[in-house]
């Protein structure tokens, strides 16, 4: 069954309002394309001039969504959803990678300039995934922010527009989220000894 574009938006709204089961229904619609996006995302780390993943996601969005029936929040939902899918793809990638690269050879390409201490395909990706799940229980909004910024490559401005906040808010929230995640991943080094 091929859901129409109207269905996609409905499913997105349902997912966004907490119906996690819908996520799995949506995945097949976007997965192949988002895998390409992820590929672009990974390569972009080595060649910053490659097309932005967000541009690719937007293309996908235009392809999937009927522009005439589109609601104000649809784009936001779609991006948030795409970011979540990207997170899953990149985590899967890291999981698969661990077997392959264990024992060295990790090229350590940062996940994003916001989280440079997490490498694409690195072991810490899995740790990050768990930390995000934990944070999600307390503050899902922050997780979405991290997903948009770090897994989809949205700029602070894009993220602000998508989440209907200001760039300053995005920056501030990002700082807190990063500190939280860093402490979670590196509890020892986070407490810099003071005399």
């Amino acid at each position: 069954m091929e859901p129409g574009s109207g269905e996609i938006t409905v499913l997105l709204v349902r997912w966004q309002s907490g119906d996690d089961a819908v996520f799995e229904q949506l995945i097949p619609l976007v997965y192949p394309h988002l895998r390409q996006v992820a590929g672009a995302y990974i390569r972009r780390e080595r060649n910053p001039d490659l097309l932005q993943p967000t541009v690719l996601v937007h293309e996908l969005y235009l392809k999937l969504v009927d522009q005439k029936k589109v609601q104000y929040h649809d784009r936001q939902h779609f991006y948030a959803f795409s970011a979540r899918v990207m997170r899953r793809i990149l985590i899967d990638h890291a999981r698969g990678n661990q077997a392959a690269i264990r024992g060295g050879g990790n090229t350590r390409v940062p996940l994003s300039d916001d989280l440079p201490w997490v490498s694409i395909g690195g072991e810490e990706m899995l740790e990050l995934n768990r930390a995000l799940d934990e944070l999600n229980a307390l503050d899902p909004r922050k997780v979405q922010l991290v997903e948009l910024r770090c897994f989809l490559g949205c700029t602070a401005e894009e993220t602000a527009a998508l989440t209907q906040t200001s760039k300053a808010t995005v920056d501030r929230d990002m700082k807190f989220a990063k500190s939280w995640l860093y402490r979670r991943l590196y509890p020892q080094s986070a407490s810099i000894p003071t005399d």
Partner: protein
Amino acid sequence: MSFPSEMLQRIELIFNEALAVPEGDRQSLIEARCQGDAKLLVEVSTLLDACVAEEIVAAARLQQTRDIRANDAERIRVGAYEIDRLIGRGGMGAVYLAHRADGNFEQQVAIKLIDLPLATDLFRERLRMERQILAGLNHPYIARLIDGGVTTDGEPFLVMEYVDGTPINRFCDENALSLAQRLLLFRNVCEAVQFAHQNLVIHRDLKPDNIFVTAEGTPRLLDFGTAKLLSPSRPGSESELTRQGFQSFTPQYASPEQVLGNAITTASDTYSLGVLLYLLLTGKLPYELKEFTTSEMLRVICEEPPHRPGHGNGLHIDTDLEAIALKALRKEPSERYLTAHQFAADVQAYLDGKPVSARHGTYSYRAGKFIHRHRIGLAAAGLVIASLAAGVEGVLWQAKVANAERRKAEAQAADLRQLSNSLLSEIDEAIRKLPGSTGAQQLLVSTVLEHLDRSTKDSRDPKLLLDAATAYIQLGNVQGNMYSEHTGDTQGALASLDKGVAITASLLEEQPKNAAVKHALAWAHRSRSEILFGIGRTQEAVPEMRTAIALFDELAAGRGSSLDTLLDSAAAHGRLGAELGVPYWPSLSDFPGALAEYLKAREIYQRAIAVDPNNIRVLQAMADNHRMVGAIQMQTDPAGALPELRAAISGIDSLHEQAKYEMAIRRMQSGTIGPYAGALIEIGHYREALAALEQGQSIYRELLAADPKNIRAVQDVEAGLSREAEAYQERASGIFPEEGANPRTDAANALKVLLDQRSVLEQILRVEPHNGNWESKLGMVLIDIGRQQRALHLENGSLDVEQRGLTILKEVAQRPDAQAYQLFDAANGLITVEPPSLREPALAVKYAERIVERSSYHNPEFLLTLANAYRANGETEKARAAAKRGLELLPPETSTTVMSRVRKLLRAQLK
């Protein structure tokens, strides 16, 4: 660490508050805010610690990433290549070391690509241009183009031979090369540069960093990123780049003309080679640039003489070698080695212990003999033209196509016929239009002529014969058609055209309906006519042009007459108009006839504009038509000519920007300003005229600087000077008083200009020694010089100048083929020369009668001269009659008539 989300909100609130205050105040702030809640305090303070630690780690990690990105671009693919590392980064992009990803080749390559986010289309255009240039340059000493393409992002890239070497100066020093070794290496560099020049490529940024030497000691020219292709195949690009200020160069190696933004020629590259040689010999630059400001660059590069090489670097630099280095570093391009080959030859001569050219002779003569010397040398050796001519053939062949695939295809199909065609269309289309090319033209003409004679001998193949005829006609035009850039060999031109006419005429007999043959024959006649007219044989030129027009009209009447056919026909009418009545050239002075032809041409152009309103050739031709109509109208009605001339000037101005850079358009611009100023002089608007001429002269000088050997540019300068002198002299004469004018100042200015004009005329006469046109101009200038000297009381008692002028004028006038304007000059000289004791009015009358008769009483100016001559000879009645006839040629006088010089003087002769 599990707590409700409300707690997270509290943590976050205090965290953000703490971050907003200076670090020293944070501890007290969070303690106050946590109000003894130990759990909360730990949460906030560990998060704040994490925040600080994260920032430090993140910064370090980002820096590391940037380093990795810059240095280890592993796994980046560009086309079929995998990038290994960054070699260098320039203003436009980067060069990477790479290898083929498919493992087909183990070869290492250099990939040049634009990897800047802000790259503009200009960069891309430049890179495409570089690719085009390199595609035509296959030489062992030039880094080879291997491949090219477009990245997945759509950015163009080049794949080049990777040169594992060191910059030439470092190579010399590190290997402690001897003087002879350095010179040999340098000579090889010259060879590569010469090869580029033969390919119509000027490198424009020769410096050690762009000349690598491999471990085996062979040089490689790199980076043609700023090179210029002398080919109109991409007409827009160069001018576009230049306009946008993208003429980059390296100041230490830049020639004065580069710094000044003037036209760049092959001599600019030889200058840079001169700096390089100097560096290789002395280890120093020829001058010091203390700062890279424009004023400092201008001062040092354009004015300061180079330091004498002395004995730097532990090498013995003798006077011959010093002369070679300094010759290459002359400020004036024309004084340098014009080609890298000449430079190399002198270096070789030095190495062989032979006399070097840098030390003797003035350059201008030797340059002309350059090709000659080579041809004789090669013929004597009985060799197949090894370097020069063969190089030119092969090279032009490549330059024409400039596209590897097409070139390959043509190379496969190449036979003699195609070769001559491509060679000639190359000369015709590519070189002729651009400044700075006469040397190259001369080089080509001799090669091509030999080639043609060989290929047409004994041939009966009509296709080959037609192509050969076409080639002969093109060649004839390049040799001596005054309407375009030519090498000044009019006799050779006529000989080539005779061959063209003979071949096409006999072909037409066999195939009377063949339009291509008919067109070629028409073109041959037209070209012959133009050349005959150019050397003053107008009586022969006119029927020749009428023959051409008849043929063109037949073609235009035929089915499917194209824009080209229309333009051919119109142009021929215009040319006939010129022969009938163009002023200041030995035309037949048939002004009404000339105007009629020009108006016929205009009608055809209007039809052509209707077909293609934006066709630049048509618009250009239309502007030219206005110019010519104005120039002819000026003979009887200068005020009436002004609107036509203004229409011409605005027509040229409105031509597309890119066309303005072409020499022909620049010439047209300057050639319109001349008559415009002339018309203003005729009605006494001297100040305006002088202002216009000043503008014209700057264009002439620019054209001349672009190609100092170009005789037409010199002639243009002369024409401008002639009008300028005229303006001052006329105003000094007081015929039309102008406010604020001072006759003495005008006389002084006139004298200054006349002296300039004399030296220019003498220069022209050295090239064309027996051209009566220039001779009689010189005669008149000498007489004018004498007159102005007297006006300024500068005479020295001797009458040498005046007598020499009269002698020349009379000598030219007595020749059986004397032209109307030569007789006109003689007549005027004989009755106006100072002192009056030198005047010969009777002889003047004889000459004046001849020109008036010859012009069928059409030329008011001639009638004025006749009237003046009669008056001087005491024949008052005849003077009145002549003046009356002259006035009848002018438009009837009304209340709005603007008084002109000729009208005023003719009226004075009525008394």
